């Protein structure tokens, strides 16, 4: 069976037996730990060098990502919830994560992953504050959602169009401003008008948003922070009735 990883490995006979054994015996655990720690400790240099090392030593890219990088990012998410880490720390952790992912992604066997849950995310029209949205995007990405980021100041119809186009299950709307919070209700109305409201779960977040506001405008969920967003998104998807796949 052909693995895309194999061509990067030096042929076995070129590697001394003892070196090979010591490398392989030592490395999986150590490499995974270094990958995790590099993300958790915001060490971009270590993340990049360890990702390269993982490829060179023949570690499976999927293994390196899910049992290394993602573990570190999730630990960072816990520290964020515990108010040990704040926005800068989480962003720099994610910089290390994505730098390592850039190296590992080409070696991923795409078919070994499960089908991901599509998520459209963006800051609603009229607002350009996107740090919160970006944090939620990172944490949902790490949690295994397929992210379609529309950016900031997004025309409302784009949320609906993109969600239909990619057959998303989740639409995440963000705003920091009271002047733009009502745009979220408009997106929900648009979904209703098209008769496709039930196809999506709509999750809201941002400074002025509250659970009460989310309930009032008929959203499915509200999250107070990026870590919370993952929890709520997973709950919403778990509760979602299985609908026939779109043709």
């Amino acid at each position, binding site marked *: 069976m052909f693995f895309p990883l194999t061509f990067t490995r030096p042929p076995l006979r070129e590697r001394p037996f003892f070196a090979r054994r010591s490398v392989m015996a030592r490395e999986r655990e150590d490499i995974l730990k270094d990958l995790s720690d590099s993300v958790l400790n*915001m060490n971009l240099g270590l993340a990049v060098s360890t990702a390269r090392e993982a490829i060179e030593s023949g570690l499976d890219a999927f293994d390196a990502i899910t049992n290394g990088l993602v573990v570190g990012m999730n630990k960072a998410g816990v520290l964020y919830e515990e*108010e*040990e*880490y*704040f*926005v*800068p*720390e989480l*962003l*720099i952790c994610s*910089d290390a994560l994505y730098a390592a992912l850039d190296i590992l992604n080409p070696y991923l066997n795409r078919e070994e992953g499960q089908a991901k849950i599509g998520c459209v995310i963006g800051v609603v029209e*009229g607002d*350009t504050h*996107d*740090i919160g949205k*970006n944090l939620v995007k990172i944490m949902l990405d790490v949690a295994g959602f397929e992210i379609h980021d529309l950016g900031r100041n997004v025309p409302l119809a784009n949320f609906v169009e993109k969600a239909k186009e990619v057959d998303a299950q989740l639409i995440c709307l963000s705003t920091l*401003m*009271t*002047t733009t*919070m009502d745009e979220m209700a408009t997106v929900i109305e648009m979904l209703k008008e098209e008769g496709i409201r039930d196809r999506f779960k709509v999750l809201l977040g941002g*400074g*002025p*948003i*509250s659970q009460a*506001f989310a309930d*009032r405008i008929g959203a499915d969920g509200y999250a107070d922070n990026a870590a919370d967003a993952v929890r709520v998104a997973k709950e919403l998807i778990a509760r979602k009735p299985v609908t026939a796949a779109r043709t």
Partner: protein
Amino acid sequence: MQIPEDTQTSLERVLSYLQGVNPQRIACFPLILNHASRAINVPVSKCIQNAELFGKAHVAAYRRYGNDLITFLSSTSSLAEAMGQKMNFIEDDAPQLADPLVKQLEDIERVKIPDFSSDGRLPVYLGATEHAVAEVGHEVCVSTVLAGPFTTAAALRGADVFVRDLYNNKEWVHKLIELCCQAGLKFIDEILKRKSLPIVAEPIGSASLVSPRVFAEFVSPYLKRMSDRIHANGGGLPAVLHICGKTKPNWKPMRETDWDIWSLDAVDMAEARAFAGDRVTLVGNVTPANLLKNTPDEIDAEAKIICEKAIGSPRGFILGSGCEVPINTPPQNIDALINAARRYGRFDADDVVSPKGKSCC
């Protein structure tokens, strides 16, 4: 319930706090910023780009509502704007940051200490301040709000890159904040010259964004210099700091920067009161989005709970909004907020509701 009438002027009420005596009733600071344009029926962008309109709008809003503080601010990027940052003006909303001025590290050379007579909208701010002080300065406290050095630096650099600089370019980021601090100190002097109260807003120092460690390293040293300047040149005026969002994790380093009055947003006022002790006067913190969305009765109920938590704080309590009163807030909701101060914050009679702390506001 009957709303008792005020016989003190707004200024008398606010001065009571500084003199350490109880006012007739607690003061109320709804942070009316861009909403003031509604009082003269002009779009926000027009109001905030013209000194005369800006000044008239805030005087008109004061006359309409009787708020105890006039606050000149349209966005926390005004100082950055005068230092070279481009803004996008929006017809009926506050301006927003355009592309950051400081894209590359060497772009720090493009950042200038502003000329207060010509750069950005500083002349609009200062002209409007003069107008309001001349019109109503004898009866109400007029304030002019500037962003703190950390927030101004973030505006010049773009917040997402800026927060990374805190780790990746420490020395450099101190240089940028230093420039913003120097500009801010000058702004404070210009405001004081016009007999207005300088208020510093440092929203990027919120714990919604940065940790106590970052606050102590990058926010505190500069904020301390700003409060020192107000204490040195303000002729007895208090140093007033506003930080929106969550702030509790950063209260400790905040306290060390020596501000007399804290205007707080997403916090529990009972906890804030316990922390403030006899060092800090608290302002807050009806939820801004609720001012926009809730009914007057709901505003009254929320304000009542806040009063119950915070009245009795040794250095006093001022009812207010947690952050800017949303532009499209129904006027009756602002009335409800101020009436709540009249109802629940009285010190002048035994037969009116006065929860806790009769001894002091």
